[in-house]
């Protein structure tokens, strides 16, 4: 991204405090990323991790990211507020557009040169930023990097980015070449990002004769199918996008479909590939602390963020899902009519949690504000007390028996999830989490999401349009509950034994904090909240900074939340709608949720 390439002739080049703040935030973010991805500390020297990641070359890569993001943000803001409006005398002609006027050979040379340049920059970046490499920039080290599959992932990402830019500008890539490129890209992606392949790269994986080859993993074929579907759909859409587009009003960065796709690829790469380089401790945290809580947070986000209902007993549904799993595993004193593989328990957990959500919601969702919070709080306590004291059914505080593990026995495939390997659970969880994220996002931008927004803002007005507010609130409750039920299954199976004191009120509040911290109503926000807030205790615990003790956790989180509420009440990454609502309600216009007292019109 060259800011200079589209430099205007006249513009106000002054920077204000906002720009400085933006830049500092981006750089600080880069530093935090550097620490997060840096080496782990040692018990004897707790600050080792921070020192190493900030003093070695490792930090350079992340600083570069921070500066680049800061520049992009500043550029975007400046263009948006009009102080950097571009002044042009001739129509826009970018470097790549000019290249289309070259001959075929010239174009080929240009393509090759830019591709190689991108590859080299990527390799240097990989050298600086990678947790595995020795962080010394030398030719030898760069060559050494080829031993690691991660390097190839970086390469593919950079080349894909380059390809998207070139393809958008040139639109001249023949279809067979396009498909071939897609197949090669996907195979390379599978080779570098497949969870079942080792971290150290080996060409052996490409040899079909070898036992552990790429072609023996079903995931490879999954990638192929997904990738080809995307490529073909691009080809079909290609003709449509060639038509002249309507002029855009805004000069700001426009998110094109291919940019969005690339963001998904980038995020997917990190999510699929990064865990393989983590130590066992972090892999366990990733599943049990972060992954499961991401699922819980996006579930609670439907209730709190989308529908605007305060639910303080959310953990009850999580507990129900977990205990349903224990029941159908035969781990409870009360024996089930038939035992099930956890995969088949998931639908039962969904239905059971959903039903209890509906049963709790129907009578209580007529209540408003504080009353609803108190009733849900009570429900959470009831479930906890039942789990703790109804020993004939739940085995009480002694804990349940062993819960059946995930396993697949289908069409000759026999695979049992290994309790020692948290990654296998993690990838399974992703299989639920990623579709859930996309489905809930669709939901939020559909009729249902708009209706929730309407109820949240003005229930009386919504009802006057024929919207059954109770129905939509119960719907939100049931969907949130069923998501928690699924999370319960995943926790129960991984932990193996359930204890009632897992499901205390504190946990409900913790999940609520994730949602509020991240930004109510924004799926990206709550995921961010869940990742940051769940990562933090694991990190502090691991490095034992400042004599950190697990029991102090809520002290820190409480302090963080207070600071947050003062400076950024809408959350870290708020949804546009919610941010607007909070601003409105501060000005006394409408309410930010459907909790406040209803202001029915007084008789006139």
């Amino acid at each position, binding site marked *: 991204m060259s800011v200079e390439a589209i430099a205007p002739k006249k513009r106000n080049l002054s920077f204000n405090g906002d720009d400085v703040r933006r830049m500092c935030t981006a750089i600080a973010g880069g530093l935090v990323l550097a620490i997060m991805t840096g080496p782990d500390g040692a018990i004897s020297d707790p600050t080792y991790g921070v020192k190493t990641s900030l003093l070695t070359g490792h930090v350079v890569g992340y600083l570069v990211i921070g500066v680049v993001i800061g520049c992009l943000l500043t550029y975007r803001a400046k263009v948006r507020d009009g102080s950097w409006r571009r002044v042009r005398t001739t129509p826009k002609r970018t470097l790549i557009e000019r290249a289309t006027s070259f001959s075929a050979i010239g174009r080929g040379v240009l393509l090759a040169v830019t591709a190689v340049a991108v590859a080299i920059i990527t390799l240097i970046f990989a050298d600086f930023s990678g947790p595995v490499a020795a962080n010394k920039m030398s030719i030898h080290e760069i060559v050494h990097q080829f031993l690691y599959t991660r390097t190839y992932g970086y390469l593919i990402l950079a080349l894909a980015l380059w390809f998207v830019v070139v393809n958008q500008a040139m639109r001249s890539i023949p279809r067979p070449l396009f498909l071939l490129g897609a197949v090669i890209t996907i195979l390379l992606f599978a080779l570098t990002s497949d969870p079942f392949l080792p971290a150290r790269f080996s060409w052996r994986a490409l040899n079909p004769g070898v036992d552990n080859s790429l072609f023996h993993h079903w995931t490879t074929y999954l990638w192929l199918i997904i990738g080809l579907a995307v490529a073909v759909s691009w080809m079909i859409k290609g003709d449509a996008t060639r038509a002249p587009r309507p002029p855009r009003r805004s000069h700001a960065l426009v998110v094109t479909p291919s940019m969005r796709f690339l963001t998904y690829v980038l995020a997917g790469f990190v999510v699929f590939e990064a865990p393989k380089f983590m130590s066992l401790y972090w892999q366990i945290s990733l599943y049990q602390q972060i992954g499961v809580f991401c699922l819980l947070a996006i579930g609670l986000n439907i209730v709190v963020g989308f529908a605007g209902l305060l639910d303080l007993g959310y953990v009850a549904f999580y507990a129900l899902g977990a205990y349903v799993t224990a029941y159908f595993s035969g781990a409870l004193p009360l024996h089930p009519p038939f035992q099930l593989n956890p995969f088949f328990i998931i639908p039962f957990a969904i239905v059971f949690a959903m039903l209890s959500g509906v049963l709790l919601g129907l009578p209580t969702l007529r209540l408003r504000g504080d009353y609803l919070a108190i009733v849900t709080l009570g429900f959470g306590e009831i479930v906890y007390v039942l789990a703790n004291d109804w020993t004939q059914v739940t085995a009480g505080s002694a804990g349940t028996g062993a819960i059946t593990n995930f396993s697949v026995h289908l069409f000759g495939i026999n695979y049992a999830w290994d309790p020692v390997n948290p990654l296998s659970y993690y990838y399974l969880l992703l299989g639920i989490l990623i579709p859930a994220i996309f489905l809930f996002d669709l939901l939020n931008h559909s009729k249902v999401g708009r209706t929730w927004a309407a109820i949240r*803002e003005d229930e009386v007005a*919504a*009802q006057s349009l024929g919207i059954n507010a109770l129905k939509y609130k119960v719907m939100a409750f049931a969907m949130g509950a069923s998501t928690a039920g699924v999370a319960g299954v995943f926790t129960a199976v991984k932990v193996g034994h359930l204890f009632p004191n897992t499901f205390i009120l504190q946990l409900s509040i913790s999940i609520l904090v994730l949602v509020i911290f991240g930004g109510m109503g924004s799926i990206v926000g709550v995921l961010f909240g869940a990742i940051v807030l769940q990562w933090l205790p694991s990190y502090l615990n691991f490095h034992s900074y400042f004599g950190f003790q697990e029991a102090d956790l809520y002290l820190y989180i409480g302090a963080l939340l207070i600071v947050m509420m003062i400076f950024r009440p809408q959350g870290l990454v708020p949804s546009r709608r919610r941010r607007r609502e909070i601003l409105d309600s501060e000005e006394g216009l409408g309410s930010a949720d459907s909790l406040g007292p209803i202001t029915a*019109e007084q*008789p006139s």
Partner: protein
Amino acid sequence: MTSNDPIFEVKNVTLRFGGVTSLNDVSIQQERGEILSVIGPNGAGKTSLFNCLTGVYVPQEGSITFHPSAGKAISIVGRPPHRVAHAGVARTFQTSRMFNALTTFENVKIGVEARQKTGPIGAMLKLPRTRHEEKHSDERSHELLEFVNLTHRTNTLADSLPYGDRRRLEIARALGTDPKVLLLDEPAAGTNPSEKLALAELISRINTELDISILLIEHDMKLVMSLAQRIIVLNFGGVIAEGTPQEIQSNPLVIEAYLGASDEAKQ
């Protein structure tokens, strides 16, 4: 006007809040296709009447019957507001109640969508029916915005609209529900004279072009006298007069009620 095709029949409705009687034995009939205006001094019970007609308040006595089409009768009393709206009664509010954080277009779209059948599963999976309904609601919302002349504000957030536009948006949103009768609660409050003219034109277009009956509460007598075909005057929760604008203007009871209560009649 056929007098035996009513759209609203209100018979002997009495509404009390504790010891206060807000509506006392009110009987009103509105004909199909009619612009009927309800006027009266502040506190006369006009908005209470609206709230009874839309199911927000449940009167203690009396019956309210809504006829969505000739020969069909629906009792409003005891019906929740959203089902009244479904039957074909749309309304606007005295103090404008927009969905402020949503755009103008989204506000109207919610009104249109309230009648559609898409559920959460359809919305998540983008089933054919959802796509179809989405397309329909987009088209309809654009039509309505054009009808109320708000096309230039399509992507503006509702809370940044000027007051007159807000009123028109509220009307567009109500029209989105495809109503048979539209209840307008002081639509001209807070608008300037030119906006008032545009509003009067819009209301008569709704009545003639869309064939929707209109029940109008308004303090602006010029607007009422120019629009209404019939006027009902409320005072202290009871009907004190009923008739054409000319009759009302010369009715001694009305003059007394108005001159005694406020000086709005002089305007």
